[in-house]
């Protein structure tokens, strides 16, 4: 496997900047890659090729020809393999070189030289396992129940923000910004602008929640680590949104690189029958646009923050969730770097 990009030298800072390894990350919406098509994506600071075969199955390969390192994504989809545009080297969906047309019998043939990531497709999105050892089995993936429960209706909203991934996660671990940044939104106009928070442990992460208000604004968030990192939160709708109560968000943020993040927001609501249909109709015609406007408030704020904004802060009690998150990721990055250095 010498032709694989050697990542053993990743430092703790590099891992912190480009994302935790040895876990699942959301990659992109499933419909970004049609049957028989392929697409280049950059995730965790590296380039990848998403490749969908005609039977619908999806594969994910390092976007790097094992011959000279040219991007396979510029090559040709050959059904169950890709031919590099540079010299025609053919790599199958498992990462094995199957043909070197310019030199038949070349010793590259038959060797698995391209990293292939395990992928799953869930609730309209592609998830992939980013391991430090390309030959190791992926770890377990417990999916957020909001994404698999039949009694819940959902829409995925996907966007790319020019902000570090940690800022996007920290934004979700900061419920209080709802009452300020989103004060004039369709869903977060209510409630107090001061609050006390607490952290409540769970067996998969923790809740960060207001102690004195619930169901009025963005009042709580649960951070979960279940093989993939995600948050769950709930925000009330005004009466104009009809029956079904609050809507929820399952959120994920995947580093594209150190400065850019792919954000995933599944807006969901526990509705069935005609209530479900009306919500979906209203979402498509009216609500999606309003939700987007709220998301844009977050994007504009986060993109305007200096890349080192978190180096000159004065935090207070509302930031306990953010602090907790940072410590967790900082210590995990250090542990992963140490393990890689010793490997």
């Amino acid at each position: 496997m010498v032709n694989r990009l050697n990542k053993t030298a990743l430092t703790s800072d590099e891992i912190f900047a480009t994302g935790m390894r040895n876990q699942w990350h959301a990659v992109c919406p499933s419909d970004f890659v049609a049957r028989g098509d392929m697409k280049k994506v950059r995730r965790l600071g590296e380039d990848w090729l998403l490749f969908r075969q005609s039977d619908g199955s999806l594969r994910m390969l390092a976007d790097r020809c094992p011959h000279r390192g040219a991007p396979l994504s510029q090559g040709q989809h050959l059904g169950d393999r890709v031919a590099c545009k540079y010299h025609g080297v053919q790599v199958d969906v498992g990462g094995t070189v199957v043909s070197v047309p310019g030199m038949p019998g070349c010793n590259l043939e038959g060797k698995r030289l391209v990293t292939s990531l395990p992928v799953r497709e869930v609730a309209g999105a592609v998830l992939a396992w980013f391991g430090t050892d390309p030959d190791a089995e992926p770890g377990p993936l417990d999916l957020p129940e909001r994404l698999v429960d039949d009694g819940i209706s959902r829409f995925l909203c996907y966007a790319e923000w020019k902000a570090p991934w940690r800022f996007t996660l920290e934004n979700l671990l900061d419920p209080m910004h709802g009452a300020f940044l989103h004060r004039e939104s369709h869903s977060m106009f209510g409630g107090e602008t001061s609050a006390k928070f607490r952290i409540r442990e769970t067996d998969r992460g923790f809740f960060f929640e207001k102690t004195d208000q619930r169901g009025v604004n963005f009042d709580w968030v649960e951070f979960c680590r279940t093989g993939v990192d995600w948050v769950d939160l709930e925000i009330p709708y005004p009466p104009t949104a009809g029956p079904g109560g609050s809507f929820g968000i399952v959120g994920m943020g995947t580093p594209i690189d150190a400065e850019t993040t792919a954000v995933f927001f599944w807006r969901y609501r526990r509705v069935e029958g005609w209530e479900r249909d009306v919500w979906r109709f209203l979402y498509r015609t009216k609500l999606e646009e309003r939700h987007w406007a709220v998301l844009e408030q977050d994007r504009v704020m986060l993109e305007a923050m200096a890349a080192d904004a978190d180096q000159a802060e004065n935090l207070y009690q509302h930031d306990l969730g953010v602090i907790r998150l940072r410590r967790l990721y900082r210590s995990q990055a250090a542990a992963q770097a140490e393990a890689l250095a010793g490997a």
Partner: protein
Amino acid sequence: MSLYLQPRQAGTTGPTPYELKLAGAIEEVFGTGVHHLEGLVKGLNDLGICSPTGEPWTPDTFTDEMRRMAA
């Protein structure tokens, strides 16, 4: 690198004038606090927002239309 920022992801096309008008009326009725089917249908009919056939809505015709447009 151009970043992906597409506001409309739940449907391939934007809503039609008919859909916008109907959605606006549904929100108007919901906004009065009426959240049950019969009340919603009556509210739409009272507003003069008819079904595509020109007839007043019934719970059946309304739920059929919503099922069609929810996908």
